[in-house]
């Protein structure tokens, strides 16, 4: 039962990732791309982490997974901020 629940959550995470990636390719400018990517990917990562944590019996590993998630969250927030700020201050907007 818990397997099926976990699998559903992971699949949900994969869906968010895919949405983010489609956004990266299809959206017109840097800011909306950045928006799509950071929002969708963070949600996707959270869901996948949650799903794996449910399947994992080892408590320490669950702790490590949460640490990974937190670090990724901080990294993506800060790098998005930096990219956006650089773009605003006159950097190039195209790829």
């Amino acid at each position, binding site marked *: 039962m818990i397997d099926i629940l976990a699998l559903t959550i992971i699949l949900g995470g994969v869906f968010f990732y895919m949405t983010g990636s489609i956004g990266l390719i299809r959206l017109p400018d840097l800011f909306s791309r950045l928006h799509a990517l950071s929002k969708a990917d963070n949600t996707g990562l959270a869901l996948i982490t949650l799903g794996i944590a449910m399947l994992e019996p080892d408590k320490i590993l669950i702790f490590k997974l949460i640490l990974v998630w937190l670090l990724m969250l*901080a990294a993506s927030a*800060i790098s998005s*901020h*930096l990219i956006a*700020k650089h773009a605003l201050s006159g950097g190039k907007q195209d790829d």
Partner: protein
Amino acid sequence: MTEWLWLFLDLTLILLLLTLAWLTCATHNNQKGVTYFIAFGLLLALAWARLKAPDLALAEAVIGAGISGALLLAAIKHDDDAQSVNKLPSIKLWMVNLLTVALATLMGWGVWHGLELSDGNRLADQVLAQVPESGVTNPVTAVLLNFRAYDTLLELAVVLTAVLAVLTLNPMRKTYVPAEPILQTMLSWLVPLLVVTSGYLLWVGAHAPGGAFQAGALLASALILLQLAQPTAYQAINLNWMRFLLIVGIAVFVSVGLLMMFLNTAFLGYSSSWSGILILVIETAATFSIASALAIAYMGGRPDGWETFETSTSSGHQGGKHS
């Protein structure tokens, strides 16, 4: 069912790897090429994980994609976008294509034949049987620092040579702007975390994936981040310490090796009861050397005062001719 699922995943991975390799190589735009290359490195780390090589997955992510990526990005930062592309004459192009295809076919044939010929074990059983004797339980560390420790010693020499070249060629890059406050805040807790993680990787290398190279590269990335946040941090660096850090890895390695040669006749022939601790000592020293080497590689050259102190402190040895 699961077999087919694996095959599907494997094929997807392979296809992505080939595509990214192609994109990296096909573009004439440096920025794009570097971006593709970093993505390629990350996917490669995934392939290493898939093929049960977690040590390599770590190393590739930190060194192959991380540090190389940082080096490349720093290098192309001030490039002009316009690249002059002179195309090869088509005859030459076709010759290259023909050569590559012929070589690939030959190699494919060779690998196929080789897999038929081999029992699939190669050195694995022999090595795994000896791992308990090596002083560590992670087989990769056992090979790197005991069975084939000599390779690793020469590898450190390669790293030192490259850094010497970097130091001799250029002065340090000095074009950094002060960092964003938010980046500085993040680094104030990220850098300590990186240092701790690097120590952990070094320690855990004895029995699980990790070791000197991964730890050293991680430590180097901590140094690089520090440099990004505080461009002036390195001006206060003590040059004698820097020299010491660069050579300590090889110096400790060679000293241990020679000491063991006096005790046990063979260079690097550890006494078995001591081998665990000796390996840890060597790895710790190597971590510092690798970290400082990679950090210097990123800075792109020698700090102020690296070379001129000889002229300022002593008239020294004269040219010895033209007299």
